[in-house]
């Protein structure tokens, strides 16, 4: 299970605002790994995932004066940068070849159980918002409110995206069995 998300960087009051380096160092220590994994789930690519998370740390560092909840800001930045990355990739693909649904790599194919592989593959075909909501809910175990805050959407939207995503997944997986 993921590390305690409230342990570092949340709920800071201004007078006792901790030092930027200290908080970021602690966030890095506690959450870097899980953020990389989150980015990899959104991007399907490890190298790009690390790049995105490192860039997110840099952006939080630079925007520090206006950052109230560093961990939420960090997660949002990771999601937004992953989205931008996917968009760029899509444009690049359009220029060179017809868009194909991303498939699992041979390495993943070898190590994932069949059922898990099918689920991951099906999730990658979901609309972006639904995919993001499900990853944040079922990988990071975030609450609806936390997902809403991370994605910058309402609680109701989170609920509907998650519900639609799950239904679509269930339909897709049932159709295959």
């Amino acid at each position, binding site marked *: 299970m993921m590390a305690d998300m409230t342990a570092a960087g949340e709920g800071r009051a201004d007078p006792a605002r901790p030092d930027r380096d200290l908080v970021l160092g602690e966030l890095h220590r506690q959450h870097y*790994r899980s953020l990389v994994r989150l980015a990899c789930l959104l991007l399907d690519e490890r190298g790009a995932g690390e790049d995105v998370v490192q860039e997110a740390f840099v952006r939080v560092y630079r925007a520090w004066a206006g950052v109230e909840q560093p961990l939420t800001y960090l997660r949002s930045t990771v999601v937004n940068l992953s989205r931008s990355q996917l968009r760029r990739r899509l444009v690049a693909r359009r220029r060179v070849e017809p868009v194909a649904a991303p498939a699992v790599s041979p390495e993943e194919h070898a190590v994932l159980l069949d059922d898990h592989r099918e689920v991951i593959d099906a999730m990658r075909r979901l609309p972006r918002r639904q995919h993001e909501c499900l990853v944040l809910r079922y990988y990071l175990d975030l609450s609806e409110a936390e997902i809403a805050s991370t994605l910058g959407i309402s609680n109701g939207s989170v609920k509907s995206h998650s519900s639609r995503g799950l239904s679509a997944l269930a339909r897709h997986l049932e159709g295959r069995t």
Partner: protein
Amino acid sequence: MKIEDRVRGALHEYADRIEPEPGSWARIEARLDDAPRPRRRARRPLVLAGVAVALIVVVVGALVVRARDDGVHVSTVPSTVTSAPPPVAPTSPPNGVLVGKRGGELVVLGEQDGQQHSSLGTFAGISTLTASPDGRQVFFSATGTSGACRAPYQDVTKLVPETGATERIEGGAGVAAVSPSGEWLVTGVVCDGPSLGFTNLVTHAAYGSDALGSRSTERSASIDVVDPLGWSPDSQRVVYRVHLKDDAKPHFYVGRLWPIVPQAQTEVVELPGGPAVTAATFVDDDTVALAETTGAGSTEVRRWTVAPGSTELPSTVLFRVRGRVVSLVADPSGQHFLAVTSAGELYRWSRGEDRPTRLGDDVAAAAWLPWS
């Protein structure tokens, strides 16, 4: 099984096996140092400058062609982009010893008599130091300011002796060594997965490299601390000490590592080890000196040719020092050695000498300095 459980299981099955590369904190810090905040307004002048440079290149190119057509000899057209010249490699033996005292004072001693020539300042908790080949820059690790990970937290700082200016190079990193070419600084990254950190001193790009030369996260996860100890004279290989979790004895390696060489050419050779081996340094490109504590409470420094598979310490003893040597440094010629003992005594030994000369005490770290 409920769909929620299937999703949760699949996500964890897929993602939990992903382990980040070591050295991420160093790379984040390098990004902060390297890339200034983008300014939108700067784009237009940049574009204009680019157009201007392109025009200059075209005009100069046309002039060159015309000059050649006219039969005029044109020797060189100055490039619009120049890179920093590589630091000059030393040609003479070191003429000074850089010493970090246990109290934190950084001083320069005469290499023959140990007399103090100058003081470069006081920096609490100096544990290692190294100088660029031209002696114009000194790098040392000392008590850090950020406190980002394990205690005692250390920063690597650059000092320019001529001006006294200091600059924090890397946080969360311990021991450091500059390559004889002056191009690379290697550090022991401690903050986010112990690894070797390489900083290019010309481009300021930072890289992290697995100390065991392997991409196996399982093996790398067993590393507790990595201490780079020195470079081969050709600046291609690093000798370093690795402490593994649940293993009291240190392990010593010589590695040709990325980014110094391409990934496909990386090679790591384990040196003869055991609890009695305490320090190592390069003598020449293929030979290292290893310090081994003897039962009599002294240290024998032996010469060993780097070769995979050999695990026996050779019988050839270069020199002996009273006490337990914790740091061993050779100059790029491999002729002159410095040894620091656990009692803080500093010794110098040069080839041809019967025994080492004691240069000082209360010493935490020492390095050859081709300038004094």
